[in-house]
């Protein structure tokens, strides 16, 4: 048979198969007749903007290819996140490209059915209802927005002389705000110079997950908490359960819920003793004395359940610390005593460091603008008995976030109240509205949002528009203008922002405005804007007038809660993945398994294995957690980082509606929470006791991606004690010799790594030899890298049942290992293709699909792969992923796909490529400029986004490159090195210290 005929036949064969595939990649090419100046086909353009996935307000730069945004990266100039991004930030794209995003305004008719209406009509209705509502009959509830938008909203409400808009955030840090008011006289959320502390004591604030500004604090935390010339600062975490933050502590002390206050008061007592009184401002010293007097170590231990000597040790360390910093409760485990805990924490800081050097009262977190929960409740109660006729909702979902006992649902159901939701999704709240007007999402609009006071951070369109939605701020602005004579050119938000900044004297002229937009904000003025200058420097930092009384009142029954704890305690924890639930419809966030449980797509209820055993519950049994307000069903998960009798469900899932990825998945813990806010701070309680925990007959197989919790003493995720390390430093570690798992020497994937005694085949010379160094001591397990990888490399989303079958596609996974003898000690371990020099996967492939590149990469040629899956079987690290099916990207999600990366179809193997597309780009530019590639010029997606700089990428062949120098670290080792694979991913042992 001729070759051509043979190929023809084969072609026919594959065609007939291709017919079966549902999604052939789109083969059409469009040529732009009039391309914008800044668009060169095949070349990315970057736009600076601001992330609006949570109130922290990180700066982003959006990668735009052929008019569509395909990737978000942190803005290196931005002071808050300094170029890094968390997984929620990465997933903002999937909000923008979400297949469930509403494309047209929807109006609900009499019998409650939705009807798509054109924007003109929808806006007309809006205007009409607004005019009806004139005379104070309109209300508005919004998420926390930037100053400009806030002003415009204010204007609109003033226009119909109604109360100003109410900013609703489920996590509004009421307790912390109030504590700051009582102790510092500042009713706001100051930020912290965590990086300057040498001892960090934390009572539940989950600053690595959701608390205030996670990316910022993750960075600052690791600046403080890394090993430097043989020393490492301490981090002790006291909380009822182990969040990711607590898992990163040197010592996590499980405290009975509510016991934190007792511990703090105990510390205060000791501190006052040590500082003999210590003159506290506002004369609260004496008050504190008799308040804390009762909290002897014994009593503290009894109240909190801490072991007494652990507590004593902790106190000693605290008092010996030069620059201690104490953080109170986050919303994570905040109960009624959250206020007490935070007040106590502040006071303790005051005692330990009267100047409060590590507090920043100037750059306060923007989220402080959010209303207290009590005000939110009043807002709805007010609506009930007011004559309000119009309710405007901007991107808030109270019906999901508020306990069912709140008036919200009832109010919105009322006939005479017309509810307009400016949401892009049919979430619980929009579903109850009468009119939904989808507006532009942050990635495609102008605006401004300063995550901290005095910080200007701008938004600009980073992508072509998907649908012709209006810009909310502009729409509201127009509403305040008389309809009969609208100006020719409608007011533009960018100019409003520009004007505001010019008036504030922060920019002069167009040039500066342009620079501001290009940089994504004004960061030179990071210092501080003029007007807040004088209320700086401790002068005004003094306890509020009524401090003493409020203290007595706050601490009235501090710690006693634990005593009256009858039965299990339930905690609704904020979620690293979904925040307060707004991320629940982002496939990446659902697909990425929770860092601690490694469960994806589902919401398990975490309980201590012993507690489970006592109640005869097995992991996977569906458990019914019931309170007097409601009940939630979720599968049990045995988790060691728990105080006894505590059940934790993290928030975010359990939506009805919202979208195909969120609807009906998981459980919503909010629905069993109590209604009454804490009287003083008006904070809701996310902790509740007692609850009934009953085993049901049903079971749910957990979609977890981990095969085992421990590493069976293998050379995988290694830790080293600080002492041991000091000895190491004396004499390096490379002198090992032997063939055993732990004796095998450290063998770089370079000629140096070869030795005739071990190696049958000769080494290869490299010009560039790409490699990565993973510093386990810096990895906090936040998973941003993994999600960034999903975004950059077009990884398929497989869904819950496929994960149950063990078919997740993550190229980079964070393995979570518990210590065999202390299961509450956790090590996070990023695992990706090791790009071995002697890669076991390569030689077994019959068709050369995986092979070694001249730069040491382990290439995988998709269109050569025939799917024998031998490579995956033979990979000791099991990092290869097979396309069991052709994965789907429901439109318009497919528009996010990275054009530089092949979209794999069924039947081929894939794996981490070290972002080879980025390496190629670097090669091109280097070639054009006739130079070599700089060290650090190439940043794979994971390296780029890591908030704690745990990952470093570079050329191992270059003796002076950063990666190469890091391999000299005595902590350096290779996973399962004894297989003599000569991995190019070098790990640095995690440094642990016993407290």
């Amino acid at each position: 048979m001729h070759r051509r005929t043979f190929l023809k036949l084969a072609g026919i064969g594959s065609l007939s198969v291709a017919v079966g595939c549902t999604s052939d990649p789109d083969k059409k090419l469009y040529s732009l007749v009039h391309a914008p100046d800044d668009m060169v086909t095949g070349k990315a353009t970057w736009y600076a903007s601001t992330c609006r996935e949570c109130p922290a307000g990180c700066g982003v730069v959006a990668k735009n290819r052929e008019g569509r945004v395909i990737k978000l990266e942190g803005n290196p100039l931005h002071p808050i996140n300094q170029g890094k991004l968390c997984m929620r930030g990465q997933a903002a794209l999937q909000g923008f490209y979400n297949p469930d995003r509403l494309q047209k305004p929807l109006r609900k008719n009499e019998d409650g059915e939705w009807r798509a209406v054109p924007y003109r009509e929808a806006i007309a209705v809006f205007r009409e209802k607004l005019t009806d509502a004139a005379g104070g009959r309109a209300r508005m509830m919004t998420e926390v927005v930037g100053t400009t938008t806030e002003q415009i909203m204010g204007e609109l409400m003033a226009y119909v002389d109604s109360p100003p808009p109410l900013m609703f955030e489920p996590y509004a840090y009421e307790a912390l705000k109030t504590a700051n008011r009582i102790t510092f006289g500042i009713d706001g959320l100051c930020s912290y110079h965590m990086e300057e502390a040498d001892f960090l004591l934390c009572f539940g604030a989950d600053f690595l997950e959701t608390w205030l500004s996670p990316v910022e604090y993750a960075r600052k935390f690791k600046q403080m908490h890394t090993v430097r010339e043989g020393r490492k600062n301490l981090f002790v975490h006291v909380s009822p359960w182990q969040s990711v933050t607590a898992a990163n502590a040197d010592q996590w002390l499980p405290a009975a819920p509510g016991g934190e206050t007792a511990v703090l008061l105990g510390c205060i007592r000791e501190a006052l003793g040590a500082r003999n009184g210590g003159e506290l401002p506002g004369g609260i010293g004496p008050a504190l004395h008799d308040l804390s007097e009762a909290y002897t170590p014994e009593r503290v231990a009894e109240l909190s359940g801490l072991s007494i000597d652990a507590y004593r040790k902790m106190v000693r360390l605290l008092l010996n610390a030069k620059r201690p910093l104490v953080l109170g409760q986050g919303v994570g485990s905040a109960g009624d005593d959250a206020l007490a805990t935070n007040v106590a924490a502040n006071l303790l800081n005051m005692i330990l460091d009267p100047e409060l050097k590590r507090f920043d009262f100037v750059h306060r977190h923007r989220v402080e603008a959010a209303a207290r929960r009590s005000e939110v409740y009043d807002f709805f109660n007010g609506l009930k008995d007011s004559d309000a006729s119009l309710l405007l909702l901007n991107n808030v979902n109270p019906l999901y976030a508020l306990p069912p006992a709140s008036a919200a649902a009832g109010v919105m159901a009322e006939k005479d109240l017309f509810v307009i939701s400016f949401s892009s999704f049919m979430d619980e709240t929009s579903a109850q509205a009468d009119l939904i007007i989808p507006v532009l999402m942050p990635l495609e609009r102008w605006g401004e949002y300063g995550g901290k006071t005095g910080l200007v951070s701008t938004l600009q369109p980073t992508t072509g528009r998907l649908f012709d939605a209006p810009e909310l701020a502009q729409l509201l602005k127009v509403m305040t203008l008389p309809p009969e004579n609208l100006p020719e050119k409608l007011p533009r938000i960018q100019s409003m922002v520009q004007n505001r900044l010019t008036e504030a004297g922060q920019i002069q002229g167009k040039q500066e405005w342009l620079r501001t937009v290009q940089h994504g904000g004004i960061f030179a003025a990071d210092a501080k804007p003029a007007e807040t200058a004088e209320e700086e420097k401790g002068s005004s930092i003094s306890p509020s007038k009524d401090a003493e009384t409020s203290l007595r009142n706050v601490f009235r029954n501090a710690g006693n809660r634990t005593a009256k704890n009858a039965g299990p305690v339930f905690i609704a924890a904020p979620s690293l993945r979904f925040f307060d639930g707004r991320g629940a419809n982002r496939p990446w966030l659902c697909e990425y398994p929770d860092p601690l449980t490694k469960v994806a797509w589902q919401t398990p209820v975490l309980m201590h294995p012993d507690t489970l055993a006592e109640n005869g519950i097995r992991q996977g049994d569906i458990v019914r957690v019931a309170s007097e307000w409601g009940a939630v069903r979720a599968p049990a998960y045995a988790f060691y980082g728990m105080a006894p009798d505590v059940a934790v469900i993290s928030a975010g899932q359990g939506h009805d509606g919202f979208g195909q990825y969120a609807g009906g998945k998981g459980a919503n813990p909010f629905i069993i929470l109590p209604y009454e806010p804490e009287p003083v701070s008006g904070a809701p309680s996310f902790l509740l006791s007692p609850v009934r925990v009953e085993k049901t007959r049903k079971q749910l197989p957990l979609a977890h991606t981990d095969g085992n919790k421990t590493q069976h003493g293998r050379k995988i995720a290694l830790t080293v004690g600080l002492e041991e390390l000091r000895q190491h430093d004396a004499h390096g570690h490379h002198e090992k010799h032997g063939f055993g798992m732990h004796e095998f020497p450290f063998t770089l994937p370079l000629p140096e790594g070869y030795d005739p005694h071990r190696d049958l085949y000769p080494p290869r010379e490299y010009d560039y030899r790409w490699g990565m160094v993973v510093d386990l001591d810096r990895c906090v397990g936040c998973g941003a890298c993994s999600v960034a990888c999903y975004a950059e490399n077009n990884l398929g989303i497989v869904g819950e049942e496929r994960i149950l079958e063990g078919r997740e596609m993550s190229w980079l996974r964070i393995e979570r290992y518990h210590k065999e003898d202390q299961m509450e000690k956790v090590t996070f371990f990023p695992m990706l293709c090791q790009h071995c020099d002697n890669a076991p996967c390569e030689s077994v492939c019959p068709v050369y699909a995986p092979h070694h590149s001249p730069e040491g990469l382990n290439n995988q040629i998709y269109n050569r792969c025939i799917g024998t899956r031998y490579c995956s079987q033979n990979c000791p690290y099991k990092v290869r992923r097979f396309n069991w099916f052709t994965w789907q990207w429901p439109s318009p999600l497919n528009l996010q796909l990275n054009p530089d990366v092949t979209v794999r179809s069924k039947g081929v193997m894939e794996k981490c490529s070290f972002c080879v597309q980025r390496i190629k780009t670097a090669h091109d530019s280097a070639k054009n400029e006739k130079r070599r590639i700089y060290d650090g010029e190439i940043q794979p997606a994971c390296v780029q986004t890591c908030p704690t700089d745990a990952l470093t990428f570079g050329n191992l062949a270059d003796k002076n490159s950063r990666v190469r120098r890091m391999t000299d670290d005595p902590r350096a080792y290779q996973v399962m090195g004894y297989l003599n694979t000569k991995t190019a991913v070098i790990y640095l042992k995690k440094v642990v210290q016993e407290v």
Partner: protein
Amino acid sequence: MSMNNRYVMGLFNDESLTVSALEALKSSPWPLHRVHGPYPSHKILHALNFRKSRVGYFTLAGGILGFLSGYALTTFASVQWGLVVSGKPVVSLLPFFVVGYEMTILFGVLGTVLGLLITTRIPDRKSIKLYDERCSGEHFGIIARCDPGKQEELAAFFREQGGEVQMFEDEETG
């Protein structure tokens, strides 16, 4: 040989009879044409004392050719792109041995088959004409040649050797 020969087959249902008949035939004027049999009786083979079969040379040639072509193929294939896998040199003779080995056997067998086809001259349409179906059952058939008109004597000879006789009238065969 001349075209006007006649052939007579004597059929014996026993090895020893056949052998004695062969011996007798030698001392008789009639030249032996050939012997048929249902299985390779060693006694008869011995009586006919053949030269050693040359099939083996085909086998050997095939084997050597196979081994060489095995290595040739693998080496050629791997130098085409020179891709490095698992740190092995592009031409790594050790693994290639397996291919060489299998090819040796494959070509060796093909050589044998070829040898058999050549030496035994099958497929063969002609000799079926001078054949008796009993020869594939339990009889051995000795075919001797004689001049026209002498068939009866020859037949008689076979009969007294204790066999049945099959006459072939057709001249064209040989």
